[in-house]
């Protein structure tokens, strides 16, 4: 009885405009948190340096072995996979990280809970700010590759509708996976920050982000095929560098339409999972008094 009374979300969610307001305020708050710790110039340098260094590690590794043969199709495969994987780290990890930040670092989660917002949308809104920063990093990394490393991306040949559709579906799917993870984080004490990193790391390894799945031992490949990110990255590659993507046989048996259908299905599945998980974890966290818990993460 008490627990039922203490959950205001269903009533609030029905209020007109509350979801948009929550998303907007959370995104703005997220933007401020991410960017206002320094002046814009340092922030810009900070935003550029990390993704470029990350991409450069791969570039140097590749160039040491191949003697700088950037025309080989495996290079754009690796480079673009790595660039778009930035979204996985920032969106998936970012949404769950918001729970840690608000609960443990800023100690504001309890106040957010009593504010007139819808919590899952608040978390998604916070994730949107991270998506914006991630987009900047992806743009810079891809531009650097095209300008200096002969990544064969011809703007006239890009399948833009396929690119934007797959990008939209992929980001939505990642946000829902992030919400699922964030919900679980509500119930975990120490090591919460490891959880997001471990999931992102596992996806990095098995989704064929930086090497074709064929390179994995045969017994590990099914894990790669079970990863939703695998299909998303394949679609992004097909949209941007279709001719290069064709040279890899990993998902050659799937047409673009089939891949989109898989992505839509997975996005819907993760949406349902995310909201069910949130509902359960949120209830448990309230029942057990975890909302304002501080563990010195």
């Amino acid at each position, binding site marked *: 009885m008490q627990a039922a009374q203490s959950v205001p979300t269903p009533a609030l969610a029905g209020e007109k405009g509350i979801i948009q307001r929550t998303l907007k305020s959370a995104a703005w708050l997220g933007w401020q948190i991410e960017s206002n*710790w*320094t002046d814009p110039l340092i922030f810009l340098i*900070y935003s550029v*340096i*990390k993704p470029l*260094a*990350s991409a*450069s*590690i*791969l570039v*140097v*590794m*590749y*160039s*040491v*072995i*191949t003697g700088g043969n950037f025309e080989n199709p*495996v290079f754009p495969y*690796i480079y673009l996979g790595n660039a778009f994987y930035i979204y996985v780290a920032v969106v998936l990890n970012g949404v769950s990280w918001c729970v840690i930040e608000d609960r443990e*670092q*800023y100690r504001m989660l309890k106040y957010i809970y009593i504010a007139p917002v819808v919590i899952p949308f608040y978390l998604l809104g916070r994730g949107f700010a991270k998506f914006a920063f991630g987009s900047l990093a992806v743009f810079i990394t891809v531009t650097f590759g095209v300008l200096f490393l002969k990544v064969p991306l011809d703007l006239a040949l890009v399948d833009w509708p396929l690119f934007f559709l797959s990008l939209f579906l992929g980001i939505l799917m990642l946000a829902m996976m992030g919400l699922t993870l964030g919900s679980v984080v509500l119930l975990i004490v*120490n*090591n919460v920050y*490891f959880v997001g*990193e*471990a999931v992102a*790391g*596992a996806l*990095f*390894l098995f989704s064929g982000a*930086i*090497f*074709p799945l064929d*390179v*994995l031992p045969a017994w590990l490949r099914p894990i790669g095929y079970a990863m939703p990110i695998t299909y998303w990255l394949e679609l992004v590659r097909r949209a941007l560098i279709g001719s290069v993507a064709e040279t890899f046989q990993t998902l050659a048996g799937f047409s673009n339409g089939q891949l989109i259908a898989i992505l839509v299905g997975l996005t819907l599945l993760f949406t349902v999972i995310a909201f069910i998980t949130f509902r359960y974890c949120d209830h448990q966290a309230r029942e057990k008094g975890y909302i304002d818990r501080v563990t*010195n993460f």
Partner: protein
Amino acid sequence: MVLKAKVHKNTGLNLFVQTIIGRAYPRVVGLLRERTWFFFDVLLPVISVSAYVFIYRAIQAPDIYIGFVVMGGAMTAFWLNILWAMSSQMYWEKETGNLALYIMAPNSLMAILLGMALGGLFATSQRALVITLAGIFLFGVQIEVSNYLLLFAVFMLTMVALYGLGMMTASLFLLLNREAWHFSNMAQEPIYLASGFYFPIKSFDFWIAASASIIPLTLGLDAMRQLSFPGGPALGFIDVNIELAVLALLSVAFLFGAKWLLGYMERLAIREGRLTDSRR
């Protein structure tokens, strides 16, 4: 009555050593009490190492590069320890309210940092060892040490120089607030790149590699690779003995630098009232 009770108090060198042990203790005990930390600290680098190994396999790199990646991946544990548990530790201590207590207590801040370093070194060495063993087991890396004594000397000097650097940067973090987190975060991938964690540093132009040698792991890692892999010397940056000498110089410079900077920054932080402010 309580005030009149006699308590033995260490002073001078005894207090210095007691402080080191006192600060190292939670680092070592923490490893045993929170075993999931150990699990994740090993798992995450193993995932990264595996990903880089598969990239090398995708581009048909010689096997020695797989060994280089495994060794580099293991050494990331030390760099992460320096960044998050040495340098930015002062920031965390400030956030939790311990920093003011450290300053007020009748002990040396240098001893506290040394304790942190020794405890961190002990805990991180175990992680690095497990990562290396996991790499050897998973990817069949062949290690053939040509000179164990030299390898041990290189490793120890690298650690002294590295933790000296960590103590030096910790003093800078006395002045920082929430930007500390971002600076530490920013110093990961760029250092992995500059120090050649996943490829031989020789791949860079000589002067770029020489500049990157200010980070002790650059030369330490290069020397350890030369001593641990049969084809290592061919891919080495400079002679191991020269690297050893440079590491010895860096160790002395960083330890003295840490002592001087710590004193200076502590005075500055006290004057500017930064020791207890909290801007999250």
